[in-house]
């Protein structure tokens, strides 16, 4: 076919050579999806990292003056949210690197290593983001509904802004996760195994 190129050398005979289709529309689609995934993961990281809410509660009253104590909700209080921020940060760095590689990577020759590294790194980062998102979602569900069996009270009725911001970050991370899954699936299906006859190493 005219728009396929053999990128790996092959041993002699009818063996299997990976072939990558050099379809331009596919490349632009992957680029766009990665751009949106980058925006989604960056916004999830930033929104969760600056998530903070302070409430002042009246603890006691001496005479006429109420004694107030301030209670803060920050993302560092829960290890799940810390993992969420780290995972989304790493995934957004990965997306940025992949975007840069797709833009200026044509000048460098990695001897085909690029076609191995990109799906592998994509898969690892998808696993990372899925772990971070699901941990944060379930901790958020616990914060919103509480758990009567373990006597854990819900905290979202008092810290509603904190919970809403956290929920928004989780939604952004889920969107980024879905987009990254689509990108990974497309870059996997771009690899095709073809039985090749007597291809020698390209000059």
């Amino acid at each position, binding site marked *: 076919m005219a728009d396929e190129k053999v990128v*790996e050398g092959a041993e002699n005979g009818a063996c299997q050579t*990976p072939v990558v289709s050099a379809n331009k529309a596919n490349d632009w689609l992957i680029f766009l999806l990665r751009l949106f995934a980058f925006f989604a993961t960056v916004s999830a990281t930033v929104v969760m990292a600056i998530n903070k809410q302070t409430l002042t509660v009246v603890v006691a009253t001496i005479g006429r003056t109420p004694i107030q104590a301030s209670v803060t909700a920050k993302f560092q209080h829960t290890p*799940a949210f810390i993992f969420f921020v780290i995972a989304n940060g790493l995934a957004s760095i990965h997306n940025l690197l992949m975007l840069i590689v797709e833009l200026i990577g044509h000048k460098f020759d990695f001897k085909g290593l690029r076609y191995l590294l990109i799906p592998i790194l994509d*898969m690892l980062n998808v696993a990372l983001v899925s772990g971070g998102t699901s*941990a944060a979602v379930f901790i958020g569900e*616990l914060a919103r509904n509480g758990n009567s069996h373990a006597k*854990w009270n819900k905290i979202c009725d008092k810290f509603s802004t904190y919970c809403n911001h956290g929920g928004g970050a989780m939604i952004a991370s889920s969107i980024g996760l879905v987009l990254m899954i689509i990108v990974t699936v497309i870059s996997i299906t771009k*690899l095709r*195994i073809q039985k090749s006859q007597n291809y020698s190493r390209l000059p």
Partner: protein
Amino acid sequence: MTLAKRVPIFLLRLLALGASVTAAVVMVSARDSAQVLNVTFEANYTNSPTFKYFVIINAVAGGYTLIVLFCPSKVSLFRFLLVSDLIVTLLLDSSVSANIAIGQVGKHGNSHAGWLPICNQVPKFCNHVAGALIANFVASLAYLVILLYSLHIVLNLPKP
């Protein structure tokens, strides 16, 4: 695909099948009761939606592995198998991550939110949950290795 390439994947899938089925069974059988001020309360996997999610995901992963184990490996199905392996790895990974988060709250509590740890009152339940988490972790690691090995088979890199 030659037999020598298929055997490691088969063994890894067997390991993943055993691990995910073990995880589901151990979580379902986790039970303990504690007496606090003349009130008994039972700790069960149905108490938390996270644990229910754990059992469902591990059951699905075990069923999927069972089906794929006895599937003839044709070249045309390979890409579809890669994609579905990726999805199952994702699900296993998300379940282990969410349950580690909830288990950490159960074991150490969260002083900022006013959540007390419960593992002192129901230690048998906590140990069962920890064992199920380890099994799930092994299953997700096995699936990750299956994914990477499948990619390695597809990309037939020439030796330098």
